């Protein structure tokens, strides 16, 4: 089953701290009026742009094994491989902020409005991340409505290009999902167009399946270790 998701204006508004983090501004830092003005202008441009849209499609574990294998370039041992094997339900997803926002960022760089272009880029990225979290919630709601989830079910999304799941995995993923209906395509270098788009797999199961130690070989190369924050936020079991 495939579901298309639209978002309210409030849902699509990025989190301020996340936008500022993208600008290298720590949470709680006192900022100048210039920065506040840039932030507010970026939000205005973002809200005037195309409405973001997402979709997800259920996929069996057998089919996901094929999608995940992709072109055969994954690391031998990865969190996604282990977590998906323990999943209760799976779905592939994609979301996009659309082409106009990327064009707005490019145009502002070209016209010399560097600060606004950069702030707008951070705002768009923060918006995309927030919407991905909402897509996780919507899949959980979908499972609950079909009595396929229990009170302990947690849904988290994982994307190609991270944690040893090779970027080329995008190709089989998008072949299965067919996100052309929401305006997403893939370049030869496995880059999604429009640029502010995210895709991946939604994995549903007990919270514990998403807990893993960052001791996979691929973890040694990871600069951000952003998985730790997500794991800390998991409900206690």
């Amino acid at each position: 089953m495939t579901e298309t998701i639209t978002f309210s204006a409030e849902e699509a508004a990025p989190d301020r701290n996340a936008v500022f983090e993208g600008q290298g501004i720590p949470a709680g830092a006192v900022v100048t009026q210039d920065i506040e003005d840039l932030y507010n202008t970026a939000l205005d441009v973002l809200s005037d742009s195309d409405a973001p849209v997402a979709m997800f499609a259920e996929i069996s574990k057998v089919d996901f094994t094929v999608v995940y294998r992709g072109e055969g370039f994954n690391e031998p041992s990865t969190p996604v491989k282990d977590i998906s094997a323990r999943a209760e339900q799976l779905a592939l997803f994609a979301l996009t902020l659309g082409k106009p926002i990327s064009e707005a960022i490019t145009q502002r760089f070209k016209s010399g409005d560097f600060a606004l272009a950069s702030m707008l880029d951070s705002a768009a990225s923060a918006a995309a991340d927030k919407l991905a979290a909402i897509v996780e919630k919507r899949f959980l709601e979908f499972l609950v409505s079909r009595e396929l989830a229990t009170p302990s079910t947690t849904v988290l999304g994982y994307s190609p290009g991270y944690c040893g799941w090779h970027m080329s995995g995008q190709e089989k993923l998008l072949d299965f999902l067919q996100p052309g209906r929401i305006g997403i395509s893939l370049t030869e270098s496995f880059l999604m167009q429009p640029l502010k788009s995210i895709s991946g797999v939604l994995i549903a199961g007990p919270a514990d399946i998403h807990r893993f130690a960052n001791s996979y070989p691929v973890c040694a190369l990871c600069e951000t270790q952003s998985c730790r924050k997500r794991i800390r936020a998991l409900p206690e079991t």
Partner: protein
Amino acid sequence: MDILTQISDTLIGGDDENVARLTQQAIDQGIPARDILDRGLIGGMDTVGERFKVHEIFLPEVLLSARAMHAGMDQLKPLLIQEGVSSRGRVIIGSVQGDLHDIGKNLVGIMLKGAGFELIDLGNDVAPESFVETAIKENALVIGMSALLTTTMPMMGSVVNLVREQGLGDRVKTIVGGAPVSEEYARQIGADAYGFDAANAVDRVKGLIGVN
């Protein structure tokens, strides 16, 4: 306060309109273009860079100052050409073949220009041959490459190898950067330097060329 200090302070404040006005005023006063550039504009951006490095100011403020720098340069450029004032060096930048991300590259470019380098931005999805051919044609000292995908990073190695094959290794230095790139990766592919952010990239380029 002398006018060059005024230009520098106004640039630090990110006021592009007044930097343009004061730069024109300095030109009208007959101050040599080199002095306006070095002590006014680059001097201001150097202070901005230092404050950014110690976290006194943030990226948006750096970029507002960069816009002010560009506004001053727009006024000064004809005089720089007339007086034969050369830049600190010519740098080629681009996102490697297959990569369309350009925010990081754009930030590096803005800050390199702010530091007095002449920039040739080849844009996105740049083939290795384009980097090297342009570097030869334009007498560039540095090739800067950006990649944001693990699938496009290998193209950086292709450029480095091509520079070597063409016998340009002594004349043209290479610097790489981007989210999946690291100092270790730069070493592996034989790049001359790695920049972990835009400000660091400028410092590394200065180091490669031997500029203070």
